[in-house]
């Protein structure tokens, strides 16, 4: 069994718990042993870099240093924001030895730069290549749009190996799961990110525009890899439906949930029962 380091990040034990459940279930199906970094801390997310440039590097630095000292050369960070902060820090440290030296002093831990951070799309592409594709035998027959949002499509030297303006990695995974993948206009538009509570109006506007595009393309569902995107499109969709700003409910699934369904796993084991917008009807035979 292959071992991979795991950084769930804070939201995966809270609002984004379905991402944690489905990633762990998918890893188990694919025969990958996820080893959680012991005693990991928060990456700082949007809050740290909004107010303190040192803290924004120091918090991810401690995580990278812990992973290295625990012998984890490759670490999966399924949350798009955690991935972007961890890998962004990794990239900056590699370019700037002086920053690495200052951070090692501040955090009081050494870091030699030996940790590779993977995002959920890279993780799933690797699983598919290593044999998961053959296990995706449940025919879902769904029309899906791939929604990357910001942090799985952009960030120089952070998101690599795909086109930032027209990424296609998720589409390949959706096709492997037997979906009909639709072309649409909002695959890397912003949903409003971390402003869900503090500037809710902008999140409602931006999320509505994304849902409108998905519906115009004829999608049965939107597939995402980011817990902030999921929360904004799923939980905040309740309000859009209530205010009749969208004509009906559109299910939002994580890519790991969709692949788990295609692998024959039960919706409840993947977390589908925890979404605000009901999605279990997408699997034939219903919930």
């Amino acid at each position, binding site marked *: 069994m292959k071992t991979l380091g795991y950084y769930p990040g804070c939201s995966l034990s809270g609002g984004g718990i379905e991402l944690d459940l489905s990633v762990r279930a998918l890893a188990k199906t694919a025969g990958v042993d996820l080893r959680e970094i012991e005693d990991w801390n928060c990456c700082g997310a949007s809050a740290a870099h909004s107010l303190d440039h040192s*803290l924004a590097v120091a918090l991810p630095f401690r995580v990278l240093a812990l992973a290295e000292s625990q012998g984890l050369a490759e670490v999966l960070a399924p949350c798009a924001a955690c991935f972007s902060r961890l890998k962004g820090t990794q990239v900056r440290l590699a370019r700037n030895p002086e920053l690495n030296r200052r951070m090692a002093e501040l955090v009081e831990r050494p870091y030699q730069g030996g940790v590779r951070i993977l995002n959920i799309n890279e993780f799933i592409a690797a699983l598919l290549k290593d044999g998961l594709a053959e296990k995706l035998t449940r025919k879902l027959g769904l029309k899906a749009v791939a929604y990357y949002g910001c942090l799985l499509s952009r960030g120089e030297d952070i998101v690599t190996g795909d086109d930032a303006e027209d990424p296609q990695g998720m589409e390949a995974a959706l096709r492997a799961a037997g979906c009909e993948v639709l072309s649409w206009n909002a695959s890397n538009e912003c949903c409003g990110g971390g402003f869900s509570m503090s500037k809710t109006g902008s999140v409602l506007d931006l999320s509505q525009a994304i849902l409108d595009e998905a519906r115009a393309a004829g999608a049965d569902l939107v597939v995402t890899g980011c817990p902030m995107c999921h929360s904004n499109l799923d939980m905040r969709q309740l309000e859009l439906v209530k205010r009749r700003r969208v004509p009906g409910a559109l299910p939002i699934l994580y890519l790991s949930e969709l692949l788990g369904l295609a692998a024959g796993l039960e919706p409840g084991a993947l977390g589908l029962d925890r979404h605000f917008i009901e999605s279990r009807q997408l699997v034939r035979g219903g919930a």
Partner: protein
Amino acid sequence: MNMSEPKEHPVAKAVRETAGVVLAECYQCGKCTAGCPMARYMDLSPNQVMRLAQAGDAAALERLLGSEALWYCAGCLTCAQRCPRQLDPAAVMDVLREMAHRQGKIPAAARKILAFHKAFLATVEWGGRMAEIPLVMRYKMNSLDLFSDALLGPAMLAKRKLPLLPHRIRGRGEVRRIFEKCRKGTRP
């Protein structure tokens, strides 16, 4: 004709040292603003932020550091992705926001956003990880935004999306020390 670089003012220096952006390289094409999902809510568009930061005189800084725009950046990275000079306006906004915060220049419309960031970081400083229930309680107290989303917490609990007790890591003392050192450290 003098072809040498213009003299760098203190804000340009802070932006270069902290964000790695040379402000003088911006030629005001406006691509950052064209792609910005938050520009419609801003009092200054991203390219205007860049222009005022380039100017860097007292009047420009007064408008810039008191602007709502700095607080409305969602960090989506579209501006950095599309800038033809490979500049990073979002990183410039980070530096300017940190300056504005340090100088206590918080526009009224941005107080909720600041309250959220602070509540988020307070939970991380306390236990090493962000914890949603303490975060929301602290945010509500600080922002006095008491009644919006009042039903979401119970709904999230019903969906088994929230742990009742926040997890505190063993290394929380270490994390607290990181926060303390950063507070004392150099500032842009």
